């Protein structure tokens, strides 16, 4: 079964600095999706960025970018120019590419990294 590991339970960064959150995953598939979700104190899950495994180019969304290392099964999130509003739990997620018996494609989540922004 696919697993997602976030080895950093907590991270902190000074406002305006850059921080990188780590994620590794385990799969035998060659085609899949990877995501980073943000969960602020409201607990609403917000999609930050997604990466398609067949694309070599790293995804970027404004201040958020990823370092996707397919061979190493690593998918880190870099937040540049950190802002106070970036404080949240960040979850890495993997989407199973195969069609299961009933056809659903599941999202498997890591345990999360709590990011604190210091003013």
């Amino acid at each position, binding site marked *: 079964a696919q697993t997602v590991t976030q080895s950093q339970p907590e991270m902190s960064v000074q406002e305006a600095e850059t921080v990188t959150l780590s994620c590794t995953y385990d799969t035998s598939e060659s085609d899949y*999706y990877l*995501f980073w979700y943000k969960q602020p104190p*409201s*607990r*609403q*899950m917000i*999609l930050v960025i*997604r990466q*398609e495994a067949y694309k070599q180019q790293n995804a970027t969304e404004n201040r958020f970018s990823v370092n996707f290392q397919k061979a190493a099964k690593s998918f880190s999130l870099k937040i540049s120019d950190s802002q106070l509003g970036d404080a949240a739990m960040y*979850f890495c997620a993997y*989407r199973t590419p195969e069609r*299961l*018996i*009933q*056809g*659903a*494609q*599941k*999202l*498997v*989540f*890591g*345990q*999360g990294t*709590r990011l604190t922004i210091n003013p």
Partner: protein
Amino acid sequence: SQTIHQWPATLVQPVGSPLSLECTVEGTSNPNLYWYRQAAGRGLQLLFYSVGIGQISSEVPQNLSASRPQDRQFILSSKKLLLSDSGFYLCAWSVYSEAFFGQGTRLTVV
């Protein structure tokens, strides 16, 4: 645009009482629907998923059940709640790639 509604936002129930959490999606057809549970400070555990009306798959044997009576309606139920059922429950939908989540329900079993 697509929206997802989940209710109630907060629920306090005694042990042994029944449970019904409802989730509806608007603006899309035939979505995959999911129920996740999140313990405090932890990741998301997939409980159930559905690819169509009446089609439910369970990921974890437990005290809960799910139903999909309509294409865009997903219900999480229990006949008798346990203390261990406390947590934050999230409904989600997807069609192609990423999942979109509801606001969540904080359930406290006392």
